């Protein structure tokens, strides 16, 4: 192990860590948090244990029953409070410019990252340590197996590190520490509460492995409840419903392994973002190749999770609120591609927002390229125009769609659509156009105007369509055409079109309305792409002209020989 690598992990010698150790653990300030932790934890543990033993629960079971409440307290400390502190602390350093001081030292970026990652939440780590006597009580009295203990806390700490790394990555781009604090906390609550309760019900179960719930369900739940209660909890409780082995393509992975894999990918991704920004605050958080790799990994995980449902007709969890595959048969070829399209599109948009260069950056790339005798920046550079990247991303997203849909067709889910299969080409077409369009908007208009476009073009037409429908008490052609200006409506309408096909007779009129909306939506999006494309070409010509004229005015940038110190030019 090289000395540099060794120094990275010698946390006690890390200057950034020592700084936070000194400033955040000053007894005068920290004593409140220490006492609060001890008082609350002791109260919760005591009251539950005494209550249970008074109700004649054996001490071992009573102690085991304390573990989940203790994990919740530990999670509130290290994940919720800790993530907020990390995000707020980093933003404050950025505002103060002390981050720049740290950048200018010979400490390597990764060593700085480690120092900030464990230093900013050092108070929370100490608060966590104050709950260890309670944990020891639970482990000893409850006779918790060591392997179980290690599995749970391995997942717990990886999860905490994921949230903290995310907070650092967010802090690198945010500008207000209070906002960073709130966003950090909301992020943890979103992953741990909103995802299990709502979003994972759409079939996006793998998101739940971003929390520690599945590992708790797999390891802790069997120790605390048994028999029918365990089965009920595993099936019905949204927090523990992913406690069983994870079906992934044709494999079955333990929740701990899947959690570590998923969270590991994200930790590496966010750490990459932080390191890039650390090296230069003007770099994009992700490079184009990494962004493409991340999208590919996401699609693989997405497909891996629904693969058993499609290919083996095996339902490991409730999908769209239904566990019976036969009842889901008509829904799968429509619902899964639509959910895939919307989620992948959302991720593509986030990646575009990170990777597509601003006008400033793009112009700088042209100047730099011209200076070095090239006509444009290299395609994978931050400063290179994003269109090639947008096209490749669109192709990758469509390839994933194609793989999934091919399996859906091969597994016989389309049999009942025989004769109507023509309806299925619309979704990939709309999906591909929507991805390309959203990247093009960002490339041509940049981020802030794009937010306006999202409001005015993506959402407003839908809202107007709803208002018109409400006033007419009917969903007619006019309102559908208005709504179809939105690419969001286009994708949804294209996706649900086959629904009408499987219910012939009943929905002829509705089919016609949705079909008109999908057709007009295609026209609108093609027109918008054409408009943006023309504007982009004009911008490009103007930027090149400006760069060439400035280059010529400066005498072709010939390197000037210099006489040290004494010359007067």
């Amino acid at each position, binding site marked *: 192990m090289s000395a540099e690598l060794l120094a990275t992990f010698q946390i006690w010698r890390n200057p950034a860590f020592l*700084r936070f150790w000194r400033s955040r653990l000053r007894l005068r300030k920290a004593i409140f948090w220490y006492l609060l932790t001890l008082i609350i934890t002791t109260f919760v543990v005591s009251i539950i244990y005494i209550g249970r033993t008074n109700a004649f629960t054996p001490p071992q079971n009573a102690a085991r029953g304390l573990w989940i409440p203790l994990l919740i307290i530990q999670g509130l400390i290290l994940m919720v409070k800790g993530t907020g502190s990390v995000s707020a602390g980093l933003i404050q350093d950025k505002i103060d410019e002390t981050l720049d001081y740290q950048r200018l030292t010979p400490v390597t970026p990764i060593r700085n990252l480690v120092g900030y990652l464990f230093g900013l939440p050092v108070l929370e780590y100490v608060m966590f340590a104050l709950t260890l006597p309670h944990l020891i009580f639970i482990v000893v009295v409850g006779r918790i197996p060591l392997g179980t203990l290690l599995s749970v806390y391995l997942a717990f700490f990886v999860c905490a590190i994921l949230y903290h790394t995310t907070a650092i990555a967010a802090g690198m781009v945010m500008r207000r520490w209070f906002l960073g604090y709130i966003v950090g906390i909301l992020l943890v609550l979103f992953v741990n509460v909103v995802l299990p309760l709502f979003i994972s019900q759409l079939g996006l179960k793998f998101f739940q492995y971003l929390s520690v719930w599945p590992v708790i369900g797999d390891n802790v739940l069997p120790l605390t409840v048994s028999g029918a209660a365990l089965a009920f909890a595993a099936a019905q409780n949204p927090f523990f419903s992913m406690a069983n082995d994870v079906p992934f393509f044709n494999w079955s992975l333990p929740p701990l392994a899947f959690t570590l894999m998923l969270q590991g990918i994200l930790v590496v991704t966010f750490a990459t973002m932080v390191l890039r920004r650390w090296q230069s605050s003007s770099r994009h958080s992700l490079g184009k190749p990494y962004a493409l790799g991340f999208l590919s990994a996401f699609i693989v995980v997405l497909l891996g999770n629904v693969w058993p449902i499609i290919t083996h007709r095996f339902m490991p969890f409730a999908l769209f609120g239904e566990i019976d595959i036969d009842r889901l048969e008509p829904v799968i070829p429509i619902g899964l591609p639509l959910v895939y399209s919307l989620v992948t599109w959302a991720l593509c948009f986030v990646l575009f927002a990170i990777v597509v260069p601003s006008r400033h950056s793009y112009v700088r790339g042209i100047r730099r390229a011209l200076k070095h005798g090239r006509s444009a920046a290299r395609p994978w550079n931050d400063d290179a125009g994003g269109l090639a990247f947008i096209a490749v991303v669109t192709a990758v997203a469509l390839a994933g769609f194609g793989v999934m849909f091919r399996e859906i067709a091969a597994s016989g889910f389309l049999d009942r659509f025989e004769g109507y299969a023509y309806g299925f080409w619309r979704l990939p077409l709309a999906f591909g156009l929507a991805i390309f369009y959203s990247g093009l908007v960002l490339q041509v208009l940049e981020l802030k105007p794009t937010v306006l476009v999202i409001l005015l073009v993506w959402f407003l037409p839908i809202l107007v369509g709803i208002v018109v429908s409400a006033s007419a008490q009917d969903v007619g052609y006019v309102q559908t055409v208005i709504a179809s200006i939105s690419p969001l409506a286009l994708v949804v309408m294209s996706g649900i079109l086959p629904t009408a096909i499987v219910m012939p007779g009943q929905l002829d009129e509705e089919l016609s309305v949705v079909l008109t909306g999908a057709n007009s939506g295609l026209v609108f999006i093609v027109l918008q792409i054409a408009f943006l494309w023309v504007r982009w070409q004009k911008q490009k010509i103007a930027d090149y002209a400006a760069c060439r004229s400035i280059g010529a005015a400066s005498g072709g940038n010939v390197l000037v020989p210099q006489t040290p110190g004494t010359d007067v030019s």
Partner: protein
Amino acid sequence: MSTPALTIRNLRVDYGRFTAVHDLSLTLMPGEIFGLVGPNGAGKTSTIRVLATLLEPTYGEVSVAGYDLFEVPDEVHRVLGYMPDLAPVISDLKVWEFLDLYASSHGLAGSAKRERVDACLEKVGLSDKRNVYGRALSRGMMQRVVLAKTLLHTPRLLLLDEPASGMDPIARREMRLILRALAAGGATIVISSHILSEVGDTCTSVGFMHDGKLLRHGPIETVLSSISAETARIRIDLLERVEAAAEFLRTRAAVDAIQVEGTKIVFGFRGNEQARSELLRDLVAHGVALTTFAPEQFGIESVLMSLIEEGGR
């Protein structure tokens, strides 16, 4: 000949279509104290931030003590000291803890670190403030603590962006002495400043920036004499008829940049001593009652104004 402390070739910084630094080239040798002066928006801070590796330029080559800034930034960080404008001290650290943090970051440890921290505190005259929290320091004290931090690793190139702002005259004098001592020890110092008298008193060479361009640079005396040789500025004091004298001067082709202040007129004049003598004669013949007719002493400020006016023409 020793390795230049700083070599900049064709440095350019753009913000979109706005060019902040326009193909700047410069070489500084060890021991130089270089003052970078110019009005707001001249490109001084952008240049300093590029040199400090905090801003990526559009293009250009920069080497510090022989190390390429963009190829081996870590090596450059070992020999570079940077003190920004409005330099902050971490508010919840004591002064010694703040310095200890950066001494450790530069690889100092144990007693060597403690001695270096103490020496730097001593150097900036803040030994008695070592246990004071950053938040309790005045603006001038913060500047001095950050200067101490900048000196911890004995940098060979020091970049100081408006270092004297917020400092009282005594602290400024102390800083001047510190910088001279550092330069005498072989360090090269780049000072970006609006306080032109400070630059004149401290620096050995100077560069004038305007609109992103380095208009002139070199040793102060050389630059001043080259400017005064090209464009003299003449000052006249009058008893009366100031406006009439100004009107008369405006009709002369060799005269420009006329500034009227009370009974004093300062103007630029292109011409030799014979032409100057003729101008004096004509003024008297025009009925102007002169009490003084003398070349204005060139200082950095007047050179800067002259260069800006020249650039504007």
